[in-house]
């Protein structure tokens, strides 16, 4: 097996045993980036010099057996919404072209302390707004399983990098499905932790009451390791939780025997591809065979989650994105006769169409005369969604459903119809609004395209979601499948 095809745990063992060095491993991943990067366009920026410096430092640690941690020497990709000090960060937007962050995100600092190696900044939908990566201000990403198809979004570059062997693991961010959906569409594992579990300090904000950073990996145990490294309270993010972080690996292999797993009937949505539904039903049967008891449950307000999200997220975005005015950083159009004209020109030229759509939608929903009908009503619906989950979790330990109603679709298939694009996230959005956690794990490959099973667990019960996902993965081979671009695991 090639080095870039392996898991974090495999490589950690090889590094500890001095079978390989981090520099060799990092070189192997960069060679793969050189070989297939033009096809996937997974990266916006490759940080070769930084990575080699970090790899050498990791090798020093490994040689001296000094503070060796699970991620020491492991090459990791970072979504371009995460600030890395002195490394250009654009959030996939032209309005941030040339922006060099003066500080690093907390998750970045934590990975640095682990001794991880940063490969570069991955492509994404502009300001993480999108489900196909076609809203990138620079170029779309292509799915390593079928290059004419999207990788999902908005963390499409992170997903494609892991699925193509251009990274061993990656960080993404998830506001309405942006980790889980691309993970499903590229055959990898992606987890959205509970809001507050991972610090958002240094994450370029989209919707501040929904955004969470999370791991994107080859398998569930790698996801548990990466989450372990980034989770926990951060004094610099007052919304981060002070709850202790459990040892995710300690309960990972406990299995599902005796667990109660719920299947929300509303999650088999209209328009779901039959292949997806079959894979999910098979996955549910398999977990039953593993000893879980399965029962149908109802989340009655699922049908209004999507409209509530498309008020709340754009409203928060319209406020968050007000800072991009060409004054303190990023792109400035120039030529305006006064400050207002200058703002308007800068934002007209700097933002892409989807970002403008959401800024206008959010501004409208918050404007005088419409606030109660849209924003306040959406916030009340959010309460109903929270209560739906709360009621369901009195009966069951976790919920099962598809991550995405479809497998990866062709580039361009939905770009003319914003509403059709929004429907991609119909089964991932409720977890963000309901403040629970969710993970997508590979559960099928149909016509050469991966399908993801979503496991949703209560808020701050990431260990439950990981345990169910691991039990499924341990009984199946889907996570071992490698995209044609990564190559067969020999």
């Amino acid at each position, binding site marked *: 097996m090639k080095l870039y095809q392996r898991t974090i745990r495999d490589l950690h063992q090889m590094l500890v045993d001095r079978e390989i060095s981090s520099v060799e491993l990092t070189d192997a991943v960069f060679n793969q980036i050189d070989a297939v990067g033009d096809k996937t366009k997974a990266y916006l920026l490759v940080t070769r010099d930084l990575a080699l410096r970090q790899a050498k430092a990791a090798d020093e640690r490994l040689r001296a057996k000094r503070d060796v941690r699970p991620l020491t020497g492991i090459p990791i990709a970072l979504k371009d919404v995460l600030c890395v000090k002195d490394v250009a960060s654009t959030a996939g937007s032209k309005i941030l072209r*040339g*922006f*060099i962050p*003066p*500080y690093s995100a907390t998750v970045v600092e934590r990975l640095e302390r682990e001794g991880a190696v940063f490969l570069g900044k991955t492509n994404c939908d502009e300001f993480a707004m999108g489900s196909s990566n076609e809203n990138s201000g620079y170029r779309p990403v292509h799915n390593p399983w079928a290059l004419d198809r999207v990788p999902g979004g908005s963390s499409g570059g992170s997903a494609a990098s892991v699925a193509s062997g251009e990274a061993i693991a990656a960080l993404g961010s998830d506001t309405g499905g942006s980790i889980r959906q691309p993970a499903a569409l590229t055959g990898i594992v992606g987890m959205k932790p509970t*809001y*507050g579990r991972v610090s958002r300090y240094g994450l370029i904000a989209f919707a501040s*009451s929904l955004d969470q950073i999370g791991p994107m990996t080859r398998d569930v145990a790698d996801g548990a390791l990466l989450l372990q490294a980034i989770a926990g309270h951060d*004094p610099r993010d*007052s*919304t981060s*939780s002070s*709850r202790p972080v459990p040892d995710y690996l300690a309960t990972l292999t406990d299995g599902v025997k005796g667990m109660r797993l719920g299947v929300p009937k509303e999650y088999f949505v209209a328009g779901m591809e039959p292949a997806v539904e079959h894979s999910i039903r098979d996955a549910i049967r398999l977990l039953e065979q593993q000893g879980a008891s399965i029962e149908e449950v109802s989340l009655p307000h699922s049908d*209004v989650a*999507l*409209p509530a999200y*498309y008020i709340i997220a754009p409203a928060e975005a*319209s406020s968050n994105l*007000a800072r991009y005015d*060409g*004054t*303190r*950083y*990023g792109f*400035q159009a120039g030529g*305006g006769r*006064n*400050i*207002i*004209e*200058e703002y*308007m*020109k800068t*934002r*007209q*030229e700097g*933002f892409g169409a989807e970002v*403008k*759509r959401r*800024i*206008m*939608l959010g*501004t*409208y929903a918050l*404007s005088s005369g419409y606030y109660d009908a*849209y924003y*306040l*009503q959406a*916030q*009340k*619906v*959010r*309460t*109903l969604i*929270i209560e739906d989950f709360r009621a369901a979790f009195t009966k069951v330990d976790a919920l099962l459903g598809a991550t995405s109603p479809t497998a990866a679709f062709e580039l361009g298939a939905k770009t003319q119809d*914003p*509403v059709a694009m*929004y429907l991609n996230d119909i089964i991932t959005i409720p977890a963000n609004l309901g*403040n629970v956690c969710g993970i997508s794990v590979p559960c099928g490959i149909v016509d050469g395209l991966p399908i993801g099973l979503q496991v949703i667990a209560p*808020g701050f019960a990431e260990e439950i979601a990981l345990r169910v996902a691991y039990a499924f993965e341990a009984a199946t081979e889907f996570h071992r499948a490698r995209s044609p671009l990564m190559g067969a695991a020999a």
Partner: protein
Amino acid sequence: MPEPESELSSRQVEHVARLARLGITPDEVLHYRDQLRNILHHIEALNRADTSKVPATAHPLEERNVMREDRREPCLPAETALANAPSRDDSYFKVKAIQE
């Protein structure tokens, strides 16, 4: 042709773009108006939910009134904070005239 009153109008789109400090061409006004109308039609589904007795959720936080010691801590040096500025004058961000 007059626009139906129940629908988002071109004037409203222009107004919202102005509020959001977004420059927009006349063609874009029509384009975004039609797209936003379609999105708003789907969002109308919100009214299906009975929320008459439901409080609003603005954020999901358990933490309340997060406080810290009131003490001086290091912050970004001015030169670092200004390093990304497209236009600057000495230690200031430079902007266009605010008043004519």
